[in-house]
């Protein structure tokens, strides 16, 4: 399998009046063709900013200060703005959390979809319309001919997200970045969309980065997973390795706090404290103030290194620590 995207040492920073915010700090990962990577973290962990950085959507005062973003070997950071425009929406597409915000409320679906096609391909309106219709069919929207004529407010939340996915699929991108696309949806609708996405990835070989806070979605959907905390990746590897045998105390804490991993009615295992502000991170390992295993050594920043078939950023990796499922 060839690699679709490689991110090396990415650093995105925001110079605010209150100080320098390192939203993305030395993030490295790669995604192969047809592979689904889950990018997991809590709010403020930098997972969405990583996605925006890849898309080149960071606005001032934010800036990508270091690192490489290699799409099939060519560095996106070195491209001029005009060349990046040709890639965005064409070879890399993004799906956002709230489809009501990303679809234009005053334009019909066909106008918006045909615009996306014709921005990147030199085809007639007839052909663009036919391609749009096919994309709607692929994401499971019934009676696509009528639906093309509709406005976004005439769709339900789940259908609107399907339209957003259809738009992302229009130009057959190499990579789709999904930023919490099912968070606002109901469980049965989420199940439908996960099913469609999995099928599409398998069939078309599109690589997928699935940004979410929900470990259980990643567990079912993704091949690999990267866990972020305070702007850094703390652990990454295959879903099986990371979720079944977490070595980083934070990953372990997240999994252990899931209600399904605790006896019913008993207090849940919890991570003490709260996520630190990015303006005021502890020196060294950002997790050390909440970590039960922290020592003096943790005041030094741990580097991402390979430990037992995964990348890990921790001085004191947990020993084989299988999180038991209690039911």
């Amino acid at each position, binding site marked *: 399998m060839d690699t679709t995207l490689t991110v090396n040492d990415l650093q995105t920073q925001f110079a605010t009046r209150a100080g320098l915010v390192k939203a993305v700090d030395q993030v490295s990962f790669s995604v192969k063709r047809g592979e689904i990577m889950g990018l997991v973290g*809590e*709010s403020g962990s930098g997972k969405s900013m990583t996605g925006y950085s890849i898309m080149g959507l960071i606005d001032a005062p934010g800036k990508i200060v270091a690192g490489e973003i290699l799409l099939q070997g060519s560095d996106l950071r070195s491209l001029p703005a005009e060349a990046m425009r040709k890639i965005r929406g064409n070879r890399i597409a993004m799906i956002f959390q709230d489809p009501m915000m990303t679809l234009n409320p005053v334009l019909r679906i066909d106008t918006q979809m045909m615009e996306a096609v014709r921005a990147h391909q030199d085809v007639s309106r007839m052909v663009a319309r036919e391609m749009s219709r096919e994309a709607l069919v692929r994401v499971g929207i019934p009676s696509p001919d009528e639906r093309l004529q509709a406005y976004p407010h005439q769709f*339900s939340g*789940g*259908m609107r997200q399907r339209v957003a996915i259809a738009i992302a699929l229009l130009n057959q991108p190499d990579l789709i970045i999904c930023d919490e696309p099912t968070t606002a949806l*109901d*469980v*049965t*609708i*989420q*199940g*439908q969309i*996960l*099913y469609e996405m*999995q099928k599409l990835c398998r069939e078309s070989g599109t690589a997928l980065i699935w940004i979410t*806070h*929900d*470990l*259980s*979605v990643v*567990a*079912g*959907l993704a*091949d690999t997973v990267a866990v972020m905390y305070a702007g850094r990746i703390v652990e990454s590897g295959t*879903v*099986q390795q990371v*979720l079944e045998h977490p070595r980083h105390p934070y990953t372990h*804490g*997240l*999994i252990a*706090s*899931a*209600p*399904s*991993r*605790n006896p*019913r*009615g*008993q*207090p*849940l*295992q*919890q*991570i003490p404290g*709260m*996520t630190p502000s990015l303006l005021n991170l502890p020196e060294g390992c950002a997790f050390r103030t909440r970590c039960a295993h922290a020592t003096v050594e943790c005041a030094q920043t741990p580097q991402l290194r390979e430990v037992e078939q995964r990348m890990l950023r921790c001085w004191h990796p947990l020993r084989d620590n299988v999180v038991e*499922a209690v039911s």
Partner: protein
Amino acid sequence: MSQAAEKNMEQPVPAANLLELQAVSKQFVKTLDSAAKIANLFGAGMRQEVVHAVDEVSLDIRRGEVVGLVGESGCGKSTLGRMAVGLHSLTAGTRLWKGQSLEQLDVAERRKRQLAIQMIFQDPYASLNPRMRVQDIVGEAPLVHGMVEASQQRDYVENLLQRVGLDGAMLRRFPHQFSGGQRARVGIARALAVKPEFLVCDEAVAALDVSIQAQVLNLFIKLRDELDLTYLFISHDLGVVRHLSDRVVIMYLGRIVESAAADTVFASANHPYTQALLASAPKLEVRRTEFFAVKGEIPSPLHPPPGCHFHPRCPHAMPRCKVEKPALKEVGAKHFSACHLNDGLA
């Protein structure tokens, strides 16, 4: 009120159930505005739109019980929660608190009884007044209801904050100075301030991060044990509900479709909708499987399908399901389900 009269009122009514909702319904009617009425004079034929948010639902909650209310958006679970608290009036049916209808009491007495039922809201950002300090947010209600003197308010609020795991020194702060998890705790402290017996928690942990969610759920468990509280816990998250609840009630489009002990629901769900819901929920333990896709979407409560509301999406739907509304019947010990399929088995 004299002390004797008060004592008389306090006489415990022998009732096993703390709160009883008997065949309650709630309809929201969008009345015609004057323009539509004029248009009707010319034969426009516009009608009032009626949303059947809750449709003849009966629910009993015993003292000390934690009832989980599960359903997707628009199924009426929040409306039912608000009816339980008394925030929404009932279109039909009766609501009994300790065996007594609060609506028949005089205003002052109802106000006093009502204090025992409190609510915790979903959004810890929108439900706290941004211009009030925590001392006033939490301390206002007990002061108004004469539970504390103004001079003691500060100590009272400080105690409550410590009880929910916040630093007592935070009481001069405004809501924006707190994180999401801390705000959720302030919302809980506010509900506890009037010494309630029964709390309705409407998606109380949905807006929180995973690690913070565990902390707040633990707080709920601790408070129930310490203060002998009864919860109606409304959530769309099956994992959370399973962890906390003794009994789980599942709603679909304004009706209860299944109700049973938590273990029973998760081990042997009876209703096809419950089964679909359980199968759709992603689980940490399940790797790379095909996601179960239940077809279709929740229909609009403006025009609910006739018969069983779930029949357009149900894989087992029969002709009978399209015409006849299934009744909630006992299919096992304290296990109720509203599905025509069960008649075939009997």
